[in-house]
């Protein structure tokens, strides 16, 4: 597997890495400010929508009897899924010593943390009485009331909060040496102060490096099972119920594969513009995209297999309710959502079998967005289609999208984008340390510009 520093004759050296990455932290351009402004206005839309909902009740959202969960839980699962591949790329691939991860993992990790921050909002937004959200926590209280540990929603609370804690810690630890680099070259007083505090007194001493690497390995090991567990637990929100279309044993692996699929797509979606904007072409190279393309092909196949399995088990079970549900998905009122999902997740990625497309950046950018749309619709299908056609035909119903649903959905993208935008400007979005690990150290003869 090719990676940065392979002998291609390009002049990637420590200085280039430093310069390229640190250049990202230079004072914001108007384009960056425009981007931040755009994100903030989307956040404002979301905030107004949520306020309206809190004031006027859940009537503002499009939910109904029988579709009591809708766009919010779709968004929740979507963002948790996005959060997934960050940890996969940073922790799992780290353990497997897959070197192609190096230039992309920081961004993937940032994406993870911010996606969890986004996802975590939705269970709150979705609560009928959000002001009592803390009742979901097992906190000691005089009434000796405990949450119901049998409820998958409670497992969710634990799974997501654990994931947020671990991935944030992992993320911050990885950042420390790089922040120190930024600190050393920071010019403004504010940045100097910011980096001095956040680099936690990193001096690059041997003992610090020793502790750092073992801590990193330890957290990578700790985070790895979470890659599987979080989305498995999220899938149990559905699989533990008895709703036809939800109650399926295939859900945990199906959800995990889907999450990786969507996460990798999101990394591509984010990486391409950032690479372009900050001129990271030397560090993030076609080989990396090729590797991610292959990951997309694999996970796309797994997801497609899971879809087919769902239909097969519905047919094989001879359960009339399941059968009807899986007839309804491709041919019912919401069939368009199913076919969007099927095209985006199963058909479109097949193009990657054509090798040149694996490194075709414009194509990959479009494909990654298509996949993101497809994965959003996957959750939409699972949640809404199943609820729309349950056991009692009298109570079959439809969803009514409202402006609040849309406002909060775009608000979530704004919220996520806001964090990403701020992050790339203030912290090294590409790991300086790790890229340097695989570069030849700067030696005298290297000055001549000839690598090994």
């Amino acid at each position, binding site marked *: 597997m090719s990676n940065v520093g392979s002998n291609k004759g390009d002049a990637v050296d420590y200085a280039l890495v430093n310069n390229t990455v640190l250049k990202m932290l230079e004072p914001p351009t108007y384009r960056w400010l425009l981007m931040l402004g755009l994100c903030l206005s989307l956040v404002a839309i979301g905030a107004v929508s949520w306020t309206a909902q809190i004031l006027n*009740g859940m009537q503002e959202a499009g939910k109904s009897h*029988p579709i009591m969960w809708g766009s919010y839980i779709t968004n929740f699962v979507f963002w948790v899924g996005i959060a997934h591949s960050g940890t996969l790329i940073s922790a799992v691939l780290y353990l497997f010593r897959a070197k192609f991860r190096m230039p992309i993992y920081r961004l993937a990790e940032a994406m993870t943390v911010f996606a969890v921050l986004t996802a975590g909002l939705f269970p709150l937004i979705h609560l009928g009485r959000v002001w009592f959200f803390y*009742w*979901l926590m097992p906190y000691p209280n005089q009434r000796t009331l405990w949450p119901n540990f049998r*409820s998958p929603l409670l497992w969710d609370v634990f799974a997501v909060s654990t994931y947020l804690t671990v991935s944030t810690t992992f993320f911050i630890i990885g950042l420390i040496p790089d922040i120190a680099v930024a600190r050393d070259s920071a010019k403004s007083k504010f940045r100097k102060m910011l980096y001095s505090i956040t680099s936690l007194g990193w001096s690059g001493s041997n003992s610090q490096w020793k502790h750092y690497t073992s801590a990193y390995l330890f957290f990578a090991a700790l985070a790895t099972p979470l890659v599987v567990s979080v989305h498995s637990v999220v899938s149990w929100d559905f699989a533990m119920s008895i709703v036809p279309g939800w109650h399926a044993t295939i859900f945990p692996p199906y959800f995990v594969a889907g999450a990786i699929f969507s996460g990798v797509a999101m990394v591509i979606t984010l990486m391409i513009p950032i690479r372009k904007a900050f001129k990271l072409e030397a560090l993030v190279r076609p080989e990396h995209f090729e590797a991610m393309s292959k990951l997309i092909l694999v996970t796309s196949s797994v997801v497609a297999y899971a879809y087919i399995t769902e239909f097969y088990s519905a047919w094989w079970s001879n359960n009339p309710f399941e059968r009807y549900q899986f007839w309804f998905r491709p041919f019912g009122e919401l069939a368009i959502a199913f076919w969007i999902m099927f095209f985006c997740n199963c058909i479109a990625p097949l193009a990657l079998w054509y090798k040149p497309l694996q490194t075709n950046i414009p194509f990959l950018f479009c494909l990654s967005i298509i996949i993101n749309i497809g994965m959003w619709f996957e959750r939409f299908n699972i949640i809404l289609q199943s609820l729309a056609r349950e056991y*009692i035909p009298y109570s079959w119903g439809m969803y009514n999208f409202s402006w609040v649903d849309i406002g909060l959905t775009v608000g979530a993208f704004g919220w996520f984008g806001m964090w990403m935008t701020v992050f790339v400007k203030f912290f090294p979005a590409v790991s300086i340390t790790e890229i340097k690990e695989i570069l030849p150290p700067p030696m005298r003869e290297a000055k001549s510009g000839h690598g090994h």
Partner: protein
Amino acid sequence: MSNIDDQKPEVSEQGNGITRRKFLKILGTTTAAGAVGCSGSKEQNIYPRVRSDDSQVPGVSVWYSSTCTECSAGCGIKVRTVDGRAVKVEGDKSNPINRGGLCALGQASLQSLYDPDRIRQPLKRSQDSQGRLQFVPITWDEAYAQVQQAFGENSKKNFILTGETNGSLDELLSQFAQSTGSIRVTYDASVPAEISKAAELVFGVSGIPTYAFDSADVIVSFGADFLETWISPVEYARSWADRRRTDSPQYFVQVEPRLSLTGANADLWLNGAPGSEIYLALALIGELLRNGKGQGVNPEIRAKLVEVTKDISLEEASTKTGISLEKILTVAHQLNSAKRSLVVSGGTSTATSKSLGLHVAANLLNVVLENVGETVFVTTPRKVNTSASSLQALITALAGEKANVVMVYGTNPAFTLPSSFTFKNELRKAKLVVSFSSHLDETAQLADLILPSNHSLESWGDVRAFDGVASIIQPTMAPVFDTRDFGDMVLDISAKSGLKSPAAEGGKFRNFIKENWKRQWKEFDTGGDFESLWRKTLENGGIYAPDRIRERTRIRIANEAMDAIKIVEPSFDASDVKEDGLVLYPFFSVKTFDGRAANRPWLQELPDPITQIVWDSWAELHPKTAARIGLKQGDAVTVRNRYGEVNVPAYLTDYVNEGIIAIPVGQGHTEYGRFAKEVGAGNVFDLLAPVISETGVSVPLLSTRVNVLRGNTNPKLVITTGSNSQHDRELARTEIIDGRTLGAAHAHGDHENGHGENGHGHHEPKGFAEHDYHRADNTQSSGPEQMYLQREHPLYEWGMAIDLAACTGCSACVIACQAENNIPVVGKRLCDMGREMSWLRIERYIDNEPGEELQVSFLPMMCQHCHNAPCEPVCPVYATYHNEEGLNAMIYNRCVGTRYCSNNCSYKVRRFNWLEFDWPTPLDWQLNPDVTQRGAGVMEKCTFCVHKIIDAKDRAKDEGRLVRDGEVQPACVQSCPTQALVFGDLNDPESKVRKASASSRAYRILDHHINTQPAVSYLQDKKIRLVDHV
């Protein structure tokens, strides 16, 4: 409450002194009452008394007996009042008419009482500065002075226009009319006056006969919607169902061009061309006579009948009606072989301008089949006064400007009389129009003076119904607004005008009624003196003759009867209507009746039992007809003729005749309050031609053709059902009974043996059902093995059984639940989004394949209180849990609103509070103080009326016993006209519900699929099918 000191509460829950428990209970309920916003204006002076009235303890219910006046059936009611306010209307068990049940309309009378748009004080017509019509408040004295003054000028005639009046009020008005030289005019579009005329011709007795639906082995109904609106639907539904649930149910045939609720319950539904039923009726008479029936009939008459019917063969009837000969032969055969049968006629499909012939023919069928004295009784028929011709006389007088004072009470001809009669235009020509309406309806809107009368729940009155039943109407609370009893007002006007009669002690109508009863009480041979009888009447709500009078009647068939039954081609006014115009078929439904119920949000939001449409009017069209016009489901339809225009959305259904367009009456009000206005565009009555039936008593509904065009409005049809079919999911199950085996049983009158205890069959429980029941009981070894430890219910295990054979789909239970549990009404927009709040719904499924016999199922669905409830484990905060009495409890305060429980509920019976719902004052006065109002963001659902269970347990504990079977009656169970629902303790082997649950017909919905172990059992519906009729 001093003005109603005569009334005696039947049940006063007052103990001897206040115990600690009682004190806390009172404290709790009064606090709750405060919390739900009981901030009335008038009642405030009741409670500050230092020594409280004996009958009023804060927070403790007092029940008053009275009589329902919503339709003319006269069902007994018991009104629950708390803190001086009526909060619930229930059927009175002791009344022989309804025997405890009460229809949706009757229960919703509370919302008419508390209608926020009721007239609040006397009003006078005037104009504002811009010349717009307005009503300005005046004092009672001013109002009386005006009326007196107008009566003083006797150059022209005075008229008293009322709805169907009964008992003492009728007497009072007659006296008043005599003293003032007024002419009485009675008009009520909902009263089947033609039937009274037909009875006069055939039985020699004017009035509406009594029918015994439980005794008939075969029922043939020509359009009579006796389970929903016809004459006395609660009574008929009960007696129909009492027979239906036996092992030998009656074979029931309904002939009508549009599927009604009654038709949906029929074994054989025959879709005949509009107005063609007379052919079928006569052909049946002929066929039966040929088969030797009617031997007991006077030979002369028999000969005449043979003569009249000899030319009408069954084949011809088949051609004329469009009903297949095979089915007509089936009906003929069934009638011929049945020991007892019953033929009834009524409803829109018989309401042609010459409908008398059909009603007479139906009566003659009963005569030929020797049903009179068996299933039809004419000894104590109900008198009917309504007369369209008298109303037309009034209009003529008005047009000639010959009317002086027109007093209007209890009728709304400006809405219910077709506008082609020009009543609306002519009424203003009277010198003074005085309305006594309590609501600002279309007729009151035309009045010069409005003296608002009390609502019937605030009034005095009495009703003489069928069968020597005399019942009393008494006030259950002090008037909500500054209104007066209509009877009192008449007496006041009489006294102030110096008339000798009518008069009563103190000028009170109450005393007038008492005097009236004093004159008549001897006919009720009850023993004792009058005062004790009167007292008992007030307590019980009436005097009920111990048994129905069912002696055989001598039949005196008048010669005119023979003339009446000659074949008359139905004629439809078709002026200005194109050739492809359809026959307009306006029909009554329990939702709005003749329009009087349109101001009640409960009923507006009640899904129509057949179409499941809420908050709207609609036009039922056959898909073929619709295709011809180019209409799809929900499209706007403009229905037009020279008389008027109505714009409604189309509802396509296979179960209307291709030649008709069926539209419910009652919507399209231009006045009558905020809930009635703007629902349905246009009043269907206004499309009718100005025709009066040949008997002069009614305005025929089936008399007009209309043009049906695509409309250009954009209506929104809100249908609450997600699917018309149950997709073979076996939710509502029906047992198909082979009619051939029943036929023999009927012929021998075997059904008497079939009457089981409580109406359930005598079948020994078959193994399947018994095992099925004990599935939840881990102490039993039988039944499928359960993997987990099962729930234990040491003391009580509450459960319900619903007999689908007895359930007619009338939706009374839905309204009862809504009233009992403070369930909000959400309006059309939210209904469209699937956000209606009803805890109990009646699911309607139509499951026959095209060409097969119609198969409609009604399935009441509420929380099943599963013992393996899917909703319970998924709640993250334990807001819903299973209690030790088998209830699936819901804690509103703990709910955070994840709504997972609703997603996981297989029965979809949980409702979510999408917003903070509101009741416009004084509708909020109706709220039950025993039930919490739920705030925004929490889940709610049927509780099995847990507050009633707690109440019964408290009472039982005080008396040191267990709760008795039948002591707890959830609102739905209490209200059911047919007693289809049974509630009780499943742990008690003797309880009705346990026995019903163990019946061979019992099953639990979805249990065999997902092992939810519901506490609600359903007993399969029954339909009789005749595979081979001869």
